[in-house]
């Protein structure tokens, strides 16, 4: 009897396996391209929303500070006209991000250091409680605190009987989790009159200060007066008890000046003669002259000089203006428009994967799933189509592992190609779209590192998606009986 010399078959090296898989892909290029297209579309979708969200987040962060500065005038007008509500005072004390704002509260309410610290502490707690009640749905809030809203809730809960009912009902609501321990809230409610007293003091202080400022307007509007904020009117504001630093005053007066000049230029545009002149210069109908058309015209030095002349001629007080001033106004207006647009466009960013939002994350997940099904289907078809080839390879001594590897490599190659193509496509589309939306703002704040990692992530997802979807088809191929090779079609 012959000695048994049968040994385990070695597994083919990876390089050879890769070569065989590659030539298989090349042979079925059209089929492979269709699968690649599926992956490309899915990955382009993913990359597009990732890139847009990343860009939006960065732009939003850049725009935020600039917008705050842009609103300087609005803020001061409001501050000098209407005393704030209790909730507003609590919010600004709880934020306390800017020392100037805190200083304002101190002077207006005539608080000492301990009182100020106490105000901050109590306001911070009040802020969290207010957020809790605001986020509560209507029915639950109705049950807990009746029709009370905002700080009126705290007033209502000062009554011992009401407060007892409140805590009892809160305990009954199993699904509602209160933000702090109920005992903490109870103790804080006892302190609420203190906080309230502080806010009253601040409000009264501010109301008095507003009266002082209004009395010193001397028949001019607040806007007109603010133009002199760096000079005597700034003194008036400071004396009334507002915290206005000389630097801020200077800034404020410049901004107010710009606002007034802008208004003057636009007012001049509405005059019939001037409008016709502009229309003639733009070669459009007078009815089509809009502020944005005018401002884009004024970005040019020659036109700006002409417009200043026209304004002087028609009695608009533009004497002493230089074309550069007007160009600067046009630029800052364009910038403001851009920032406003950026703010609107980025309003809903944040949350979910890379800030794409919960809903988009879900949508992206579903699209990945659809893509996975598509790849699995294509790979299954590929396996079915190659039954005889696979079985023949097994007759020639291929191991199950080899067959499996070939199919997994094939899918991964498709995933890699599709992933790269999709990522590039999604990125380009995102950049073009964002460029249209944010223009110059985009170039200032392009999140390069984040975009690179998002691209890598999306390529990796593409490859993994394809490989994972191909696991079942590959298993089927690997398990195929070699005797299928004998079958004749």
């Amino acid at each position, binding site marked *: 009897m012959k000695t048994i010399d049968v*040994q385990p078959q070695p597994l083919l090296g990876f390089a050879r396996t890769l070569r065989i898989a590659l030539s298989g892909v090349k042979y079925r290029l059209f089929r492979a391209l269709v699968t690649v297209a599926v992956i490309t579309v899915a990955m382009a979708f993913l990359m597009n929303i990732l890139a847009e969200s990343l860009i939006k987040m960065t732009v939003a962060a850049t725009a935020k500070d600039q917008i705050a500065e842009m609103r300087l005038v609005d803020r001061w007008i409001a501050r000098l006209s209407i005393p704030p509500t209790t909730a507003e005072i609590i919010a600004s004390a709880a934020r306390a991000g800017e020392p100037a704002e805190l200083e304002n509260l101190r002077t207006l309410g005539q608080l000492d250091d301990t009182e100020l610290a106490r105000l901050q502490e109590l306001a911070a707690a009040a802020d969290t409680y207010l957020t809790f009640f605001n986020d509560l749905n209507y029915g639950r809030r109705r049950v807990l605190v009746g029709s009370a809203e905002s700080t009126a809730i705290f007033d209502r809960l000062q009554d011992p009987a009401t407060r007892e009912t409140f805590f009892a009902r809160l305990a009954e609501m199993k699904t509602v989790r209160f933000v702090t321990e109920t005992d903490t809230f109870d103790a804080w409610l006892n302190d609420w009159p203190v906080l309230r007293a502080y806010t009253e003091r601040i409000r009264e202080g501010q109301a008095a200060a507003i009266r002082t400022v209004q009395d010193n307007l001397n028949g001019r509007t607040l806007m007109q007066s603010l133009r002199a904020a760096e000079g005597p009117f700034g003194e008036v504001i400071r004396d009334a008890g507002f915290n206005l630093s000389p630097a801020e005053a200077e800034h404020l007066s410049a901004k107010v000046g710009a606002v007034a000049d802008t208004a003057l230029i636009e007012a001049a545009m509405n005059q019939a003669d001037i409008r016709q002149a502009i229309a003639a210069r733009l070669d459009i109908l007078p009815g089509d002259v809009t502020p944005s058309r005018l401002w884009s015209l004024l970005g040019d030095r020659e036109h700006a000089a002409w417009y200043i002349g026209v304004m002087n001629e028609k009695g608009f007080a533009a004497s002493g203006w230089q074309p550069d001033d007007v160009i600067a106004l046009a630029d800052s207006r364009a910038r403001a428009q851009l920032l406003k647009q950026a703010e609107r466009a980025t309003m809903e960013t944040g949350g979910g994967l890379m800030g794409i939002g919960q809903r988009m994350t879900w949508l992206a997940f579903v699209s990945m799933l659809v893509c996975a099904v598509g790849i699995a289907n294509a790979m299954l078809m590929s396996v079915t189509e190659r039954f005889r080839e696979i079985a023949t390879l097994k007759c020639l001594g291929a191991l199950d592992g080899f067959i499996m590897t070939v199919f997994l490599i094939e899918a991964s190659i498709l995933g890699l190609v599709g992933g790269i193509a999709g990522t590039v496509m999604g990125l380009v589309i995102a950049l073009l779209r964002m460029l249209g939306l944010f223009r110059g703002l985009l170039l200032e704040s392009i999140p390069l590192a984040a975009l690179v990692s998002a691209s890598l992530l999306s390529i990796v997802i593409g490859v993994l998606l394809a490989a994972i979807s191909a696991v079942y088809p590959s298993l089927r191929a690997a398990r195929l009986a*070699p005797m299928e090779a004998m079958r004749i079609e």
Partner: protein
Amino acid sequence: MSHQPSTIDHPPFAAGERRVIIRSVGMKKIYQRGAETTHALRGVDVEIYTGEFISVMGPSGSGKSTFFNMIGALDSPSEGRVFIDEVDVAQLTAEELAFLRCRKIGYIFQSYNLIQYMTALENVTTPMAFGGVTPDEARKRGMELLDLVGLKTRWFHRPIEMSGGQQQRVAIARALANNPSILLCDEPTANLDHKTGDEILTILQKLNRERGVTIICATHDHRMMNMCDRLMWIRDGAIERIARRDEVEVQLASIE
């Protein structure tokens, strides 16, 4: 070296010394499809010797294919045993089975089954790659084998660029890649015209005579019957008859 040719210098059948290379004992195969039970093989006992050229005949549905799968180590019997080179096929692991298919047996199919995206040479060297032969050595041996089947100049052609006869010759070269002791042919000439069929048969006969390769051939081709050592008829999952050629020569003559 296990895959060294054990039969290449082996004296041919007629020389007297012969060894059993494939043996089946009570080989049965039952397919269960739902409630329906099919007895594809009902207990086959057969011994095939080294260097033998045996033709297997039988109508479709006779169990011929099942018989082929069993003795070719492509499927395992429901009952009974199959020994290839005295190794019980049922005892082998998946890796050992692959080893056996790679080096002990060469398969030739009715529809050639060449890998479409590989050249003739690549088709021939693929089993060598599975067998662990280095690429250089494989290329050298591949060219020798292509020379043997008369296709040396067409080594770079893909199956689609070749005629049926040429494809089948490449398939034969591929089957010989690792110097197998056994060639299992499933109607190798069925898809070919008379002349190319002759060429294939000549090559097979040459292999059998000169290299002493055991050839088991399912066929309906009468020319094949003229060159084989033994003939075997399968009917209804059992061996109907096994006869030496000289025993049936008379009948063949009467048919022709």
